[in-house]
């Protein structure tokens, strides 16, 4: 069942089309990644889903509720983290979270326990009395996520959550999001840091100039763009004959013979790395190293967004 259904969504600001008739669905429990350059319409789309921006046309259904008909109900099932943290720097962590518990109308008797739970989940339990402005960027981001978890929303909308975070904070954020995915949350996450999204998301949508130019699982997108995977094969007996034989395999686009190895370019989806290894060994090659390079979302993105 789809948790989020977006149908022909269009948002215009005066004469500028920020979002030009996009449609997509996100099944319950999925992590949907929005990829796109700055100004592609990611934030506008997320703002529409968060009930902060009225669509010019189109329909949005979240958890079976229509956005325009029932925005107040949608606010109860959605948690939104904007691209900047949206925190009160002069509050302590406790004050900040209590403030939003009151805003969501959570019963006073449950607040302390809930506070402990979300702080444990976001690993901020030692910072409860600390002022928000003394927290690092990574901690502030986790605090923002703790805030949206207070009312236990079914859908999380995260706008550029990893922007400006150091590698450690990014890994922590990724782990936290995986944890939330396990809890059954449906997450829409926007980013232009592609590598990170490809690791985390079950489904991706690539936006450019307000248009959804590709949508599907990571694998489907790689196939769609005909992306090449480079595989390094270390051989004890590299020969020109072997290179020519490998080049004949269906799905292999190019083979380079180097001093101790073959560098093979394979079209993604046509032949799997495991099958290729099997075929090379069948040819009598003695393989001492087999190293398929990870596919690169950045290359896929550039391919998809380049001018025809």
């Amino acid at each position, binding site marked *: 069942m789809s948790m989020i259904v977006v149908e022909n969504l269009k948002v215009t600001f005066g004469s500028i089309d920020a979002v030009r008739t996009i449609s997509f669905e996100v099944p319950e429990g999925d992590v949907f990644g929005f990829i796109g350059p700055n100004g592609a319409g990611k934030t506008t789309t997320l*703002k529409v889903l968060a*009930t902060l921006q009225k669509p010019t046309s189109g329909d949005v259904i979240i958890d079976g509720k229509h956005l*325009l008909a029932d925005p107040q109900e949608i*606010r109860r099932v959605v948690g*939104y983290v*904007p691209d900047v943290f949206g925190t009160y720097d002069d509050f302590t962590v406790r004050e900040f979270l209590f*403030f939003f518990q*009151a*805003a969501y109308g959570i019963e006073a008797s449950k607040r302390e326990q809930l506070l402990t739970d979300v702080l444990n989940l976001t690993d901020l339990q030692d910072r409860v009395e600390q002022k928000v402005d003394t927290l690092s960027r990574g901690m502030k981001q986790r605090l923002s996520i703790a*805030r949206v978890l207070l009312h236990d929303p079914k859908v999380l909308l995260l706008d550029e959550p990893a922007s400006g975070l150091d590698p450690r904070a990014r890994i922590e954020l990724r782990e936290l999001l995986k944890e939330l995915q396990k809890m059954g949350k449906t997450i829409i996450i926007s980013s232009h840091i592609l590598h990170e999204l490809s690791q985390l998301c079950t489904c991706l949508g690539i936006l450019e100039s307000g248009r959804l130019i590709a949508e599907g699982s990571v694998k489907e997108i790689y196939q769609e763009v005909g992306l090449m995977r480079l595989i390094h094969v270390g051989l004890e007996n590299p020969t020109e004959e072997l290179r020519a034989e490998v080049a004949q395999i269906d799905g292999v686009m190019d083979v380079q013979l180097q001093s101790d190895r073959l560098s093979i370019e394979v079209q993604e989806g046509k032949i799997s790395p495991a099958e290729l290894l099997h075929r090379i060994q069948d040819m009598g090659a003695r393989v001492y190293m087999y190293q398929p390079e990870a596919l690169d979302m950045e290359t896929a993105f550039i391919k998809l967004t380049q001018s025809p």
Partner: protein
Amino acid sequence: MIFALPLAGRELHRLALRPRIHLLKMIFVGGVFSLVYLYYQSLYQVTTEQSGFLQVMGRGRDLFHFIFRVQHYSICLVLPLLMSGAVTQEKENGTLDVLLVTPIGPGGLMKQLFLSRAVPMLIFLFILLPLQAIAYSLGGVTVQDILQAIAALVISGLAVGAFSLAISSVAQTTLSAMLSVYLLGGFLWGIFCLPLTLFSARLKGREENALGAYVILSLFIISNLVLARVLLVKEHFYWKENIQSSVKKKILWLFEKLKLYSPDLRVLPNQDPLYWKEVERCWWGRRGLFITALLTMSMITCLCCLGLRSGSVTFLYQIHTIPQFTLVLWGAVFLVMTLCSIPVLALERDRKTLDVILTTPLSGREILSGKISGLRRLVWLLGLPLSVSFLFHLGLEEFGWQYYVTQVLLFFSLLPAVVWISIWVSIKTRSRTRASVVVVIGLLSWCCVLGVLTFLIPSMKAVFIPLNPLHVLYAQEMGWNQQNYLVWVCIAIFSLLSFTLRAWMLNNADRILGRF
């Protein structure tokens, strides 16, 4: 770039591209020309009634004096609007760090920022030269008078500008800089008016030695510029925190020692989170501290009124000093309320916390009424001292209990209208500084235009006066009781306006705040 002053060049270029600066100039010129025209008309009528048309000749000195005073007061009131954002806007844009590490350095930065704001000030001065030419053509004004007037105006402008720049270098935001410049500048009013006093004395034939005064003013300008540089460097490179925050902390520490405040007694939000944020969490949410502040401010007002009363030599003088003091208080109250209302929602919007609040189930009405709850406390905090100064009028002949009642009612009808207008403008305007300039200049222009219309079309007086709060307040303070019913009409109009604005904004809060 202009004379290898990149920052000054950039600022001048930016100011030249801002339509509101040109609008400000037009309003300023239009206002001053109208005022001078009205003054000329009254001068012409008096003289021709006495002894014929030609008698206006030779009266240029009166007109010149009037123009000089208008220019001087305009500089003192308008220049802080331009100058107080000089450094704070760089802070708000996050460009101060970048500028401080360039070869321009802190001294150069101050010099160029000062210069970039002084040039528009000079334009404001020279734009009125044709008026001085008219005064000169009427006779009675010498070339030396004109040169001295220009020198006096330039030095007043530089003094106000240097003071505003010093405040701007330590303030955190443009709004707090503006507020501080106007409020602290009130205490230094005597210094800023020194050229005016000396020049007026000269025009009245009492030649005084101005050199000493100009030396003092020059020292004041230089010391303020040096202070601005020193404070900027100290705050940026040496001090751990902003001077404003540090002063606030020291005051709270003092109250803590006096057992009036305890940081540990912080309550957590229960039902209404925004009320908690705006009232309960702030110092004015603590009953003891709030009452202490109320009493302190009332005591200060009381002491000022007592001082004015006992310091006034004659009863006639008392009639002028206490009402004038009350008028200044009115001005300060309006300014504080305007500048405090503007950031209420605009600050949340700028920090993106408004987006976060808007995604909660709180209704727009709850958000808006929660946000203004802090302003209600502020109304009380400003209202009580003002009402103390109203009480001091009761001993004067022209004022009775009716005066007291109407003033209190005026306070409660005008202030909410100003608050709602300021909030609405702040939502519709992208920057807080622009919103404050729009509201302050807008309200002043409204009053000035109505004032001019009242003079030009006397038959419509009964329509224009109640719509002009400045006129009503001035008339009230001057004890002009002959049109008392117009005060009640004014109260009714502005009460209705406040009520309508409040009802409209609360009913349409969701749409106004930007959600559906």
